[in-house]
């Protein structure tokens, strides 16, 4: 009873006061209740893929948006996760519940493997060096076609659950946990240090922050989550192939994140849940002009909301208190934390 009451109180003072959090709550509840409304396999498939790609995009946001380590080769982690779980299942016959975490762990190691040589690189050099890694791995995959499936990839990977709804709840559950954890990490002390490294690495080091350790930590966390997304994707799509490593796969999280709003964690999720279903339905309606319209939409949105959609919306419905920096609904007259009058 006590816990319930404190939960309700927390909900009232922390969630319902901010429109953006209300939107997030409605989104989560809607996602969880969705299969009760319809079990249309096409819609469920779309939401499952959107959830998987949100994990992937959010992991890019932590690394690039927060820590400022812009990676153009994020497909490496996604692909390593997918290939690890597929190869373990194919050659050792292990169960998906074992191989998916192993895939994420191997992707973490890949993150560290990439992170170490990239520690000395700055900005554009880093972006372009990371671009190289998934393409190099593609070369290796093509070199050993008998082991890795070569160009065709690995087919018929085991399902995660026997029904579509089961898969839906599993993947949406993982997505909510992963995104919430990333959001908590981003809001914690570690997230603050990531901000500092992005803004000025030399200054961060001068303040006594071990930037090497925190940059590697960012690579590891990001690799782990992206690897988990890749591994789950392999089991859901039931194929792990070189397309998981290609150039466009690396660019996609960047598109989603910048479109949604970088350094927010919920931005990339919004980006995926807006752009992915849109692209998918355009595929049905206007297959020929699908990517054309997609590119135009991205260009126009960036032209008029260069900080991303969620940042633009958030600044429209919320204001930041000038004295204590707590966020308030735009309709409030005074700050909810310190009572300072807000100028409307």
């Amino acid at each position, binding site marked *: 009873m006590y816990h319930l009451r404190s939960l309700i109180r927390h909900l009232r003072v922390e969630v319902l006061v901010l429109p953006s959090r209300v939107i997030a709550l409605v989104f989560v509840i809607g996602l969880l209740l969705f299969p009760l409304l319809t079990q249309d396999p096409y819609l469920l498939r779309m939401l499952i893929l959107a959830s998987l790609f949100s994990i992937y995009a959010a992991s890019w946001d932590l690394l690039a948006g927060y820590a400022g380590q812009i990676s*153009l080769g994020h497909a490496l982690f996604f692909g390593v996760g997918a290939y690890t779980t597929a190869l373990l299942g194919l050659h050792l016959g292990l169960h998906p519940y074992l191989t998916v975490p192993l895939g994420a762990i191997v992707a973490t190691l890949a993150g560290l493997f990439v992170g170490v040589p990239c520690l000395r690189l700055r900005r554009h050099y880093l972006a*372009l060096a990371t671009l190289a890694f998934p*393409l190099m791995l593609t070369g290796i995959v093509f070199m050993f076609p008998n082991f890795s499936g070569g160009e065709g990839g690995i087919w018929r990977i085991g399902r995660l659950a026997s029904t579509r709804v089961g898969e839906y709840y599993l993947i949406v559950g993982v997505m909510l946990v992963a995104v919430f954890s990333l959001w908590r990490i981003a809001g914690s002390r570690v997230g603050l240090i990531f901000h500092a490294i992005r803004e000025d690495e030399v200054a961060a080091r001068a303040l006594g922050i071990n930037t090497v350790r925190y940059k590697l930590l960012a690579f590891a966390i990001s690799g782990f989550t992206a690897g988990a997304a890749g591994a789950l994707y392999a089991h859901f799509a039931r194929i792990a192939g070189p397309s998981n490593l290609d150039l466009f796969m690396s660019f996609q999280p960047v598109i989603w994140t*910048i479109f949604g709003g970088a350094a927010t964690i919920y931005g990339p999720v919004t980006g995926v849940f807006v752009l992915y279903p849109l692209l998918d339905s355009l595929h049905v309606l206007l297959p020929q002009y699908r990517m054309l319209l997609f590119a135009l939409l991205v260009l126009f949105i960036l032209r008029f909301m260069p900080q991303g959609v969620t940042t633009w919306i958030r600044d429209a419905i919320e204001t930041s208190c000038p004295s204590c920096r707590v966020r308030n609904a735009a309709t409030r007259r005074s700050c909810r934390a310190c009572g300072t009058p807000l100028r409307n």
Partner: protein
Amino acid sequence: MVADILVNGLVRSGVYAMLAVGFGLVFGVGRVLNLAHTAFYMVASYGILHFVATGLGTPLAVFLTALGVIAIGLALYKFFIEPVREMEATVLIATLAVAILLQELLLVFFGSEIRHVPAAFPGYTRIAGVRLGNQEMATLVLAAISLLGTWLVLSRTRLGLAIRAAAQDREVANLMGINVNRVTAIVMALGFLLASLAGAAVAPLLPVEPRMWMHPLVIVLAAVVLGGLGSLKGSVIGAVILAFAEVLVVFLIPGGSYLRTAIALLIMVCVFLIRPEGLFGAGATEER
């Protein structure tokens, strides 16, 4: 075999160098990492395809293509890229979206099938017992002339001085009375010109298809950072290194065409391990 490697390597070096120099100039002056650069090269190839098919002579086709590519490029830059130029990540995505836009437009107009452009200079010439394709030689001459021309413009003219000044420090160049925005637009046009000449040069040599921009993009990015961002000499040398690495892998390793990109990128990463700012790049402290 050796002669084949040499000729192919030189032709690829020339094409990659033209693309890399244009890309490097645009980055150096405009501070725009233009992922659409090779998409304009692809548009130029299609332009040549179109104009040659309508029966125009090669020089006129090249001229019209270059003009069209520059016009399209500048229009897209002014409308979509310049307003968001200050935000690096946004520029990255905006230029990528431009590349996809061009790819899809070509798909709509020309279809997805692989096309071939008839050679403008068919036949072979024997030089010292080696059979050289005339088209390959024309490509090499074109690359040499355009790179030399770029170098002359940059080092011998007032415009070149303004470009170099803007590349070193935009703010100070602006204070010295240089119209930095106009210089940026001119450099953009120069970059598009080099890209369209490269596209015109490869159109008869390589299959023309709507995904042909991806592979050169990777190589050009690698070449530019390998040589060091902001150093044109570095870009050319990087392009030559990667072109020869690619050709050697294709000729010497069985099944090497799968590995050519991987090896080229491996070279780039290895250089980074020793020199994080590339071969001729400015050190981290000098960069502004």
